[in-house]
């Protein structure tokens, strides 16, 4: 892992309209190149809000964010070329085929012709979807939709990939394929920011995690080191519950 921060966050704050309490409360952190950085937290902690701000869906109320040296407010359009976003909801056109969806999103990233075709074919094979590429997405299983959802964010080979709960509600095989792929992707130099409710997954996958609660970072570091520092907790899930509490968050 290099020491080069690809994402710099300083005093990031976000208030939703009409809210008295911020969804993100003065977060500051650096995310380095080649990291798989996990954002963990209970419901309403601010994970999705953080991802949304970083991916440019809406601006922060306060604070500074830079991605690969580009400011998120003034260089937003340039940032879009270097980030990929895999939203929590499957964001595909259900009446188009998997192939047509990927062709469209690839074209929107500026890809076309042979390059686009090769990349689509490469990812379809990698995720075991080559036989289903010409079937419409509404007929796919949940796991297949998630895989296409992921591919759509990768076609342009982004430097930074944001994944918001990429494995929720899918079968074990599909989850395994996705997680293996993310490990391989990291090896190619892509920085991955990843939110999840699956602690075991985060513990195995992430090089560093930040545990967020009520918009604040309450713990940050390598999962193994965090557990070493808190020996009373056997695993990341226990650590998480210990830090955030066992009360339901609705």
């Amino acid at each position, binding site marked *: 892992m290099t020491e080069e921060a690809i994402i710099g966050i300083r005093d990031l704050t976000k208030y939703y309209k009409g809210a008295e309490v911020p969804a993100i409360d003065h977060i500051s952190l650096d995310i380095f190149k080649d990291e798989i950085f996990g954002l963990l937290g209970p419901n309403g902690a601010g994970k999705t809000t953080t991802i*949304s701000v970083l*991916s440019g869906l809406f601006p922060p109320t306060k604070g500074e964010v830079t991605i690969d040296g580009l400011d998120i407010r003034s260089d937003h359009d340039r940032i*879009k070329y270097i980030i990929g976003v895999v939203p929590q909801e499957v*964001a595909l056109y259900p009446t188009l085929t998997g192939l047509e969806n990927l062709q469209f999103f690839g074209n*929107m990233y500026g890809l076309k012709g042979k390059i686009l075709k090769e990349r689509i074919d490469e990812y379809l094979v990698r995720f075991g979807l080559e036989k289903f590429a010409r079937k419409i997405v509404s007929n796919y299983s949940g796991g297949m939709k998630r895989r296409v959802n992921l591919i759509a964010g990768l076609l342009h080979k982004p430097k930074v990939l944001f994944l918001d709960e990429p494995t929720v509600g899918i079968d074990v095989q599909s989850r395994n394929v996705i997680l293996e792929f993310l490990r391989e992707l990291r090896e190619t130099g892509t920085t991955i920011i990843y939110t999840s409710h699956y602690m075991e997954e985060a513990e195995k996958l992430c090089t560093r995690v930040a545990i967020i609660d009520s918009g604040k970072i309450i713990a940050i570091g390598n999962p193994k080191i965090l557990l070493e520092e808190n020996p009373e907790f056997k695993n990341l899930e226990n650590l998480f519950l210990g830090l955030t509490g066992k009360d339901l968050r609705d």
Partner: protein
Amino acid sequence: MYKLFAAFRKEWLILIRDPAGLIVLFLMPMVMVVVLSMVQEFGWSTISKEPQVPVLFVNCDNDSVGNKFQQGLSEAKIFTLITQFDSIPLTKETARQKVLDGSYQIAVVIPEQTSERLRAKIRLLVNKTMTSLMMPNQDILAGVTNNDSVEILIYFDPAVRNSFRNAFLSATKEFNSRIESRIIFETFQEELRKLFPKFNMPIIDYQQSVYFTEIFPSGVKEELLPSTTQHNVPSWAIFAMFFIVIPLTSSIIKEREEGSLIRLMTIPVSYMTIFMAKVGVYLLVCFIQFGLMVLAGIYLLPVFNMPSLEVGSNYFAIAVLAIVSSLAALGYGILIGTLSKTHQQAAAFGAVSIVILAAMGGLWVPVYLMGGIMKHIATFSPLNWAHTGFLDLFLRGKTILDILPEVGKLFAFFAVTISIAAIYRKLKPPIST
């Protein structure tokens, strides 16, 4: 540009993957144009091959006035006179009762001695005139027993439209004028023959002197009479084209709900590209819709005994106007789809606003019949601009240069609405903030 083509291809694929939706999009407007044109043609037309309006007629006079009224109303070809029920002649009271209970809309009663009273009044008039010429003739007053007013009774159902009521009254007043004129002429003629028997004056038949010729100045075709088809087909075609707002707003909101728009916000593509791709596909739909409706007007309406639509020969101007009318509708649809949060909001607002703009714009009640402020408000409706343009092309034989103001306004409306939508989307992302 290839991003626009890619977005266009995406929209096109989504559209054609809904065959039921396509059938509705193309078939329903054609059905609407035919059905509504037929309703207006047969319900409103005063030029008809068969008598349309039943009129109860009670002729208590049985003399020249009553008989001439009966003959005149029958020959008008607008009315069917009913003088008896079950072989029993109508009376004043039965006719009044039938109008009162709503069975019939009009009843005409010619009271007894109407002709006699009219002749008495005319004889008095002639006598006064002759007296002023120093030629009094007391004989003319023989048999003049009273000079009460001559009254013809017309009962109207309160539900009868004012326009029809006025038309009927005009017709009966015209008959009356002719009858009076004839009797006056004949009475004068008779007196003059009596006064000057030596001249052996021939009996001259009274004839109408002034005739009216209708001319509709049209460069489209000689003797092109503006039928209800010429008004209805463009009106309903424009109305149907603007209803593209409904499927278009649905497409925009669906894209938001499915999450695709969220993904697009993180991709380097402008909202204008996304919107223009939708415009491209739905413009094609609107143009085909318009073409089908025009063809329905030309070939389908005559199957139902209605006049065929005449479109003239200025096809280029018609195509240009159809395109800019479609663009105006699409810009409006994109704006509504962008501003609306739900399908219900978009559908309700879209549909009702189109109806309001159509009514405002004179698609149902012509603008020249509107009063005061409504006439002014009508000029702000894009449907009015489109309607005016098509009437100018179809009825008045105008050219593309003549309709440039309407073309300009429609295109400007499109440019403004789509720009507002793009700016709004950029400033207010479609997710809670």
